[in-house]
């Protein structure tokens, strides 16, 4: 039963999903993965550079251990 006296989310235009234009979606999806890959790649590259710097400049000069 639909309560006609209750407000609906669809009453507000901002709450209603936009019409999806498949062509526009395809255009966006061509760019989004590239941006995500650049962001994640930069973060991982910084992490690996930090690891290598500590390993080569601090750990190895401290001498062998076992």
């Amino acid at each position, binding site marked *: 039963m639909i309560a006609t006296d209750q407000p609906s989310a669809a009453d507000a235009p901002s709450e209603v999903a936009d019409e999806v234009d498949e062509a526009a*979606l*395809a255009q966006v*999806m*061509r760019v989004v*993965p*590239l941006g*995500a*890959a650049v962001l*994640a*790649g930069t973060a*991982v590259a910084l992490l*690996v550079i930090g*690891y290598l710097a500590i*390993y080569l400049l601090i*750990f*190895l*000069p*401290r*001498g*062998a*251990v*076992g």
Partner: protein
Amino acid sequence: MTDQPAPTHERRILGTELLWTFGVGVLVAAILGIIVFTALTIDINPPSNVEHIDPKTLHLSGEFAEQNLGTTVGADGGVTVRVIATQFMFVPRCIAVPRGRLVTLRFATPDVVHGLLITGTNVNTMVVPGFVSQVYTTFTRTGDLLMPCHEYCGLGHSDMWANVQVLPDSEFKPDRDGRVSCAQR
């Protein structure tokens, strides 16, 4: 339900994810390769000695009896340091080691779990009751290095530390029994 080809953008995302997986795989393989390479070429390994000792009697006889603690130079020239880690001190409080020679460090504890590191070196191990912790290393520069307990062992934990005195070969002189003590300063 019929099989339909995935939309172009989904195939592109899958391609990106596979490329990312490949890249991360290469990085993980490279890091593991570096660890294996240094282990094989310059003998850097995690301390992995498994040797049992009775914590109730280790101070009464054997290598961790009081007269055997500290630095000893064997007949073959090998340098061995034996230290007891106990609440809340290392015995002895100061150990002398030579620079540029392989040193074997052996630790045991009669009470609780301790841990230690030697500043400026890669020496870092836990000392667990019932086991002998063994680490070997070569000290590369002379000077006094701090060796604190780094495993919380009780209320006096923060007072538990020792001094490692790295001596040049000219000052590292064993006595007739092959023992070396810290230089008096």
